[in-house]
């Protein structure tokens, strides 16, 4: 008997990403536009080859995120077990510093209005948000966009460094693509396993990985533990925060903000059923190159009657099972076989998968005067081009080029099969057969990848109140009954009653930021002080009146 669980998962089709950063901006506006999270991007889009954000996060020899196998072949955290952690709990050397992310800044915009009469038009110069001083900007959340600074910066790309072939960073050989990233909501999350306070958890209903803000003690072990560096430290609250898979949205059946606003319409969201009892076993297969297949073997066929029966036994509701059967994610991973996990070698069993881009191959062909839509040209190039394919393999299949080649062959077949139809010629079934598909399948895949209708890209069942104790914002009880909210009932202040829902806190924070004139830490911004956490040292903002005797709000 298998223990069936449901997981909300995402697939991104990289050929369609235009690197516009709309997803990052809308995510930031929704979730991290608050004091303490200035440098935080739950969603970021990085140019590959490049260093990524935070820089070189993929270098696990340095950052030691994720899992490794011990000499008995059992999983253990790469950063070490409890004891090792206890010793480093106060000074954790495996944490990216603010310089590894970037030093956030703003501009002296006020000067544009307040500058005195002068010969030249006034300009807003950059000011560090850390020091409040003038600064020269020398790193950002996406410094090497579009291969900016390539010759100097790209050699430090940990993925490039793994390639055995020498990659020349020259105009003629240049290739690039965009990699949008969010938290992977892993089946075997090393962030959760790293937390000494048990503050991180994977929701049982849909697998979303969250931080319990009340239990988090700010140890930051999760930041080290996550190999994707997708847990962040809010230096204002002293607690960890991370991508929430927009749970307030998906609980009511609408896609995450990044997906909803994606200009390329390249994101897919759906349910995957998996066997929770087999996750640890699959994550510990000896050869890293087998991890992709091992993870696939944990994912269950939603049409299999035995799986359905086992899912019912676990209390998964019928409409969820129906959603699992219609899941675009299942189709992309299994029926079409074109989606691959990001860095399976980290052994966290990530659940945001990617369709690797065919464009580096097509670009080489058209750049050399060949027809980039001809099946034979494409198949030949996929076999011959070692560098872009080796690079993709280091990202999506632990260095094994075969899974990447197979996906690219299928994408190439779709391209040339559909072109014939477009030009009014007879469909050529042999193109589909060459990649183990039928013409009909190719057309189905084309529909999902190219037409990409909204209702087919996002198949998200609504949450059930009876399902979980942990559905945050749709929790029963008065939704206005949070601290400071209109319905707040109890006589005690902070830390009694329920925390402010994120959506509400964020709304106010955003309003404060947009209406305040100050550069750094404006004093008219609402500050929260937790007296229960105050150890008597220092003077937290907002606790005492300021020097001028004016009481802070």
């Amino acid at each position: 008997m298998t223990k069936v669980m449901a997981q909300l998962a995402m697939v991104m089709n990289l050929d369609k990403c235009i690197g516009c950063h709309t997803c990052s901006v809308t995510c930031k506006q929704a979730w991290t536009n608050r004091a303490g999270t200035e440098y935080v991007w739950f969603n970021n889009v990085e140019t590959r080859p490049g260093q990524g954000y935070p820089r070189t996060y993929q270098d696990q020899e340095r950052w030691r995120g994720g899992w490794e196998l011990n000499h008995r072949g059992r999983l253990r955290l790469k950063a070490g077990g409890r004891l090792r952690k206890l010793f480093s709990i106060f000074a954790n050397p495996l944490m990216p510093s603010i310089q590894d992310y970037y030093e956030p800044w703003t501009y002296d915009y006020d000067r544009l209005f307040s500058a005195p009469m002068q010969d030249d038009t006034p300009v807003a110069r950059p000011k560090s948000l850390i020091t409040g001083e003038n600064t020269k900007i020398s790193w950002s959340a996406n410094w090497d966009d579009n291969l900016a600074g390539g010759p100097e910066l790209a050699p430090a790309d940990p993925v490039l460094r793994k390639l055995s072939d020498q990659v020349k960073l020259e105009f003629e050989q240049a290739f690039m693509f965009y990699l949008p990233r969010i938290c992977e909501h892993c089946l075997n999350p090393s962030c959760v396993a790293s937390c000494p306070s048990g503050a991180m958890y994977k929701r049982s209903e849909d697998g979303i990985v969250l931080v319990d803000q009340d239990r988090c003690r700010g140890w930051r072990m999760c930041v080290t533990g996550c190999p994707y560096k997708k847990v962040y430290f809010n230096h204002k609250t002293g607690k960890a925060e991370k991508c929430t898979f927009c749970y307030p949205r998906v609980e009511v059946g609408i896609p995450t903000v990044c997906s909803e606003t994606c200009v390329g319409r390249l994101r897919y969201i759906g349910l995957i059923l998996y066997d929770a009892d087999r996750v640890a076993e699959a994550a510990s297969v000896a050869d890293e190159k087998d991890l992709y297949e091992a993870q696939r073997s944990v994912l269950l066929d939603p049409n299999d009657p035995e799986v359905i029966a086992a899912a019912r036994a676990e209390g998964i509701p019928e409409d969820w099972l129906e959603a699992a059967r219609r899941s675009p994610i299942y189709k992309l991973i299994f029926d079409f076989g074109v989606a691959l996990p990001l860095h399976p070698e980290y052994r966290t069993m990530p659940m945001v998968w990617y369709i690797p881009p065919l464009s580096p191959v097509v670009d080489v062909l058209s750049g050399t005067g060949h027809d980039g839509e001809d099946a034979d040209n494409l198949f030949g190039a996929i076999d011959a081009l070692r560098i872009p394919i080796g690079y993709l393999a280091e990202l999506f299949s632990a260095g094994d080029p075969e899974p990447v080649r197979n996906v690219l062959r299928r994408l190439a077949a779709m391209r040339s099969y559909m072109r014939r139809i477009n030009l009014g010629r007879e469909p050529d079934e042999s193109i589909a057969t060459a990649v183990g598909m039928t013409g009909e399948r190719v057309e189905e895949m084309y529909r999902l990848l190219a037409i990409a209708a909204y209702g087919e890209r996002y198949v998200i069942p609504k949450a059930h109140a009876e399902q979980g104790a942990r559905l945050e914002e749709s929790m029963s009880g008065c939704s206005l009954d949070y601290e400071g909210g209109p319905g707040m009932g109890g006589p005690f202040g902070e830390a009694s009653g329920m925390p402010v829902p994120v959506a509400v806190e964020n709304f106010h924070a955003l309003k404060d930021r947009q209406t305040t004139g100050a550069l750094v830490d404006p004093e008219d911004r609402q500050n929260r002080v937790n007296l229960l956490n105050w150890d008597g040292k220092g003077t937290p903002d907002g606790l005492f009146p300021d020097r001028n005797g004016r009481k802070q709000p």
Partner: protein
Amino acid sequence: MDRLRGMNGTVHGGVADGRPSLARDTDMCEAILALSGTTNGHLAAQGFATLARRTGTGFDGLADEHKKITFADTQARPVPVTTSPEWSGSETGGRRYSAFTINVEHRKPWHTLTGRQHFFLDHDWMHEAGEALPIYRPPLNMTVLFGEPGIGEGGEQGITVRYLTPHSKWSIHSEYQDNLLMLTLSRGGPTIWMSPADAARAGIRDNDWVEALNRNGVVVARAIVSHRMPTGTVYMYHAQERVVDVPKSEASGRRGGIHNSLTRLMIKPTHLIGGYAQLSFAFNYLGPTGNQRDEITVIRRRSQEVDY
């Protein structure tokens, strides 16, 4: 007009007697919204009816006749405009704008001599210039024409390169590449992209402050050195804000300019054809080509101490 009078009130006495009032800024906004087919469905419907009479084809169902967007609507939230004959795309029924859908789907003739899309320009002057069909013209020789140094000349003191000003991938002009979030996702201010070989010759490293200078003006920006750039050419992406992080120039002592400080419009005889179907004057800028983008510049590393 009656509706506008109803909203803004009527002027009594003087030259504007009986006209809708434009006394306040919001009155003017209401007037603009009421007089454009994209915000006043009634006008759009009227415009399409007139167009149908002229073209003999039908535009039924495109205009949203009863839709009227007021200034208050636009203050409350962004409001999509409606389909109107000023534009060639249809947004009817929540459709995304795409150019020329009305021409293709409603058989509205193109604004050309033949009413079709055509490349052939049958005009005496075009024939004389040998440009009746699109042809390749090599870049202008700025050295001969304007005494600029030759491409590839120079060294440590600055090298001469082609200067191009393409649109960036994120934006239409400063929208939205220059808001704080997008600046945080790039280099945070004006930049010029250049190739590693050119940068090495001029002693420029990635993120160094540089100045680009020619007979038209001077630009102060930071360099991006990338192997994505071919040798001999630099890019300064179109319309980066001049009010954000632009220091004073060493060459002029004044505020550094924008991308267009180095370009200047150039007119040739074929640009002066007028009153001939699509070859007529419209207020934007002169000329069917972007030949003013065909420029060169001397780019050099400047003092890294910048003064605002």
